[in-house]
């Protein structure tokens, strides 16, 4: 319990730091987002609207920095992150809310599948060390991991979507309106399959190799010898004794990659014109859309913290040793 309280406090402080950095950074940048904004809308909006914008961005020039900070926090609590310039007049929170589910679906599914498959392959590979699977799989997946992702994704798109026509050329759904209704899932999967495959294919090698190495180290432990001496079924020795211990160091890596799901695989979303957060971030950068950039970065920071927090909780379940620390 003390462990959990300590973790909650730690993540509270980290969250505050992320939020504050997000406030400070744009104000330390040369130039001023407001100037860019004004230049963009010159002559098209009245001064009252501009003033409203400035307040919405928390860039009210009549306030001290501290007052700005307080009102920024206040706005944030209410979910107000300003108005996007690219998608004017949509609020940033709305733009993000639209992009987030797609990224969660594509990158989330791909990351979890890659972790599970890679880990299982690593377990089998180490257990039958020197066997046929172990002499093929690590080599093959090290090779696929070293493919430049952009190149591989384009290749997959060209061959499987353009030439063979098995998959759509891009986008996340057919038609003009997105729907997460059950009836629409086949269509969503159809669009998600190829980009997800490219991610799994190029990232599985890392999980496989690290799990294999952890397994080999664990299998040298005395408790594995004892488990064999007890005459336990092979499966139990392999999973409950070896893999159960070997997976612990991998959980941290998994937490990090879960957090970065939200940042979207930028390249994937560009190649497959997938309307996720990575694509949104790219749009924001190209259009110098400061509010949207700020919002996206904040969301990524929060997601990384949240994913780490969840894995820390999971760790408590998996490793009894951290419970009474």
């Amino acid at each position, binding site marked *: 319990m003390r462990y959990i309280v300590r973790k909650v406090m730690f993540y509270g402080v980290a969250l505050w730091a992320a939020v504050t950095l997000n406030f400070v950074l744009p104000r330390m940048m040369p130039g001023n987002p407001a100037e860019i904004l004004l230049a963009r809308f010159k002559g098209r909006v009245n001064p009252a609207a501009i003033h409203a914008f400035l307040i919405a961005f928390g860039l009210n020039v009549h306030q001290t920095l501290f007052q700005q900070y307080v009102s920024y926090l206040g706005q944030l609590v209410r979910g107000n992150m300003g108005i996007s310039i690219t998608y004017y007049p949509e609020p940033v929170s709305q733009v993000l809310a639209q992009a987030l589910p797609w990224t969660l679906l594509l990158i989330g599914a791909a990351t979890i599948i890659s972790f599970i498959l890679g880990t299982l392959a690593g377990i089998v590979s180490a257990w039958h060390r020197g066997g046929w699977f172990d002499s093929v799989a690590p080599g093959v997946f090290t090779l696929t991991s070293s493919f430049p992702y952009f190149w591989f994704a384009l290749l997959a798109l060209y061959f499987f979507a353009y030439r063979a026509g098995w998959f759509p050329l891009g986008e996340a759904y057919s038609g003009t309106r997105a729907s997460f209704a059950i009836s629409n899932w086949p269509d969503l999967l159809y669009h998600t399959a190829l980009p997800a495959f490219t991610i799994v294919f190029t990232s599985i090698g890392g999980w496989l190799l690290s799990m294999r190495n952890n397994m080999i180290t664990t299998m040298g432990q005395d408790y594995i010898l*004892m488990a064999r001496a*007890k*005459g336990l*079924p092979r499966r139990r020795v392999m999973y*409950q004794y070896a893999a*159960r211990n070997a997976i612990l160091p991998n959980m941290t890596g998994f937490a990090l990659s879960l957090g970065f799901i939200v940042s979207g695989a930028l390249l994937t979303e560009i190649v497959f014109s997938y309307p996720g957060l990575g694509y949104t971030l790219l749009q924001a950068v190209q259009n110098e859309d400061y509010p949207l950039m700020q919002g996206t970065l904040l969301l990524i920071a929060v997601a990384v913290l949240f994913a780490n927090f969840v894995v820390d909780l999971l760790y408590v379940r998996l*490793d*009894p*040793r951290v419970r009474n620390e």
Partner: protein
Amino acid sequence: MSQQELLTVEGLSVTYYGPPDVEAVHEASFDVRRGEIFGLAGESGCGKTTLIAALTRLLPDNGAVTAGRIMFAGADWLKLPPSEVDAWRWRKISLVSQSAMNSLNPVISVGEQIVDAILAHQPQTSKREAWDRARALLRMVEVDPKHVHSYAHELSGGMRQRAMIAMALALEPDLVVMDEPTTALDVVVQAQIIHQVRTLQEQLGFSVIFVTHDMSLLLSIADRIAIMYAGEIVEVGSRERLNREAAHPYTRGLIESFPSVFERKSRVGIPGAPPSMVTPPPGCRFHLRCPARLTMCDTVVPEERVLDAAGHRVRCHLYDSVEAIGQNGRN
């Protein structure tokens, strides 16, 4: 093999395939009787643990038995197929391994590790029954039964080792192999655990192979003792016999190298270091360090001689003139 013997090892050799290949155990022969504590002593690296691994059929992949056979509970143990060996494990032969610290799985509870052994071999047992037995086993080794739900890191070293012993007795095996079970513990705990083993062994009647480099410990608990040097068993005899008149110069060296509480005499020890197992010395393997070395020891491998009717055996040229059983061959 008479009824009395539970385990008979004949001319057992074990090789680890390299490069270089290492013959870690060379033509070891001994037997373990029902209900006795059989001690196995020798310096680090002499092949004790390898011999144990061969006995429990837990040799690593690069190790193999190259000669000899083991008769265990009436079966040709090395010829049994792996599935049958797995079925015999823990029910007939169990192991208490070298380090209690690392022999328990850190992520599952002590009780679960006892229960899984019970359920693996007696699947008809109900879960509740198995857990009750786990508690009873812990109580038997004087560990509070509430610790069934504890994890290894929550127990002290002594408690862990007791838990390991409880686990080893879970299925009432005929033979418990203890590989340096008390080496990592302080002397007080060590004495308690040894006493416990002795008591349980008298109650339950199982046999024990007790492996250690601590000669003084063996002389206090073992019924019979085998001494190992550089992969060979150089002497086997009863505790009394070894204590009174050990035959092999190496055994005498071992016995003299531990301090006595009662006598103030200088400890002699054994000069030099154990030989390389890759290229063992020719002749008697001990000749380079032997205080009683003869010329022939450098080149001629000594035969094993039986010194008395109780089966006191030694592998040393000093006893070459001993022919008939029953004579004490010390010249």
